[in-house]
């Protein structure tokens, strides 16, 4: 791996600021975190996107969409294990030393089908859901970047709020 250390450092500063603004935390072990960011940038140069440094990317962006950092599995892993799969992100408990950092089992399914087609609104409200953090927004098109977790537009999926979930008159 040969990534310019200055590029790694700049990416780290930006990522850290974005994480904190969204209520997330980078791993406070700076050497660890810089190593992972170097891996992410290596994957950016290799594949054109930020494939998780701890998973084997296929090189096909559509197939790898779920493991583009921040991956679809980060938030459940933070909740269950206190860290995401590669431990780039850690929970408050781990950050505060109340919970040890341990390696995280892989929850990405071995068999991955195609994404389900967009659900029909059928009287409900059509929303966009960020697959990374669950942010919902009621617009015609998803935002370019998720305001919470900074995931890009392609990570949003259609989501229908059924009429029963809507507030009454």
């Amino acid at each position, binding site marked *: *791996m040969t990534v310019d250390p200055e590029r790694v450092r700049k990416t780290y500063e930006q990522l850290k600021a974005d994480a904190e603004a969204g209520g997330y935390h980078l791993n406070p072990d700076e050497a*660890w975190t810089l*190593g*992972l960011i*170097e*891996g*992410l940038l*290596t*994957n950016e140069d290799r594949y054109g996107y930020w494939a998780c*440094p*701890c*998973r*084997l*990317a296929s090189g096909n962006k559509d197939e790898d969409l779920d493991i583009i950092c921040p991956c679809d599995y980060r938030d459940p892993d933070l909740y269950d294990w206190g860290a995401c799969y*590669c*431990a780039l992100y850690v929970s408050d408990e781990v950050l505060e030393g109340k919970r040890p950092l341990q*390696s995280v*089992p*892989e929850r*990405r*399914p*071995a068999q991955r089908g195609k994404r389900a087609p967009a659900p029909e609104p059928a009287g409900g409200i059509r929303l966009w859901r960020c697959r990374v953090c669950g942010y919902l927004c009621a617009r015609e098109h998803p935002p370019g970047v998720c305001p919470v977790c900074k995931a890009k537009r392609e990570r949003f999926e259609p989501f229908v709020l059924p009429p029963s979930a809507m507030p009454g008159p």
Partner: protein
Amino acid sequence: MDKATRQRPLMYGLSTCGWCRKARTWLEERFGEGGFDLIYVDLLPGDEKARVMEELRKHTPNPAFPMVFADGECIIGYREDEYRRVFGA
């Protein structure tokens, strides 16, 4: 020769992965730099990568890295407790 060194350990990893870096360091401290084999799967050419992944799927349906093989055991993920059990501290 003690039980732990009967078979030369083999690690499959990813060159970009932090847990693989930790596993490599653990094995280097235990066996020395040349004391085990290391294959970075992400650096293999396409057809070789596919062949290796097919091989790894014989051991687990969902291969994850690092994967360390020794003495008929396969340890998936960075597991210091398992390394100590299989290799001795």
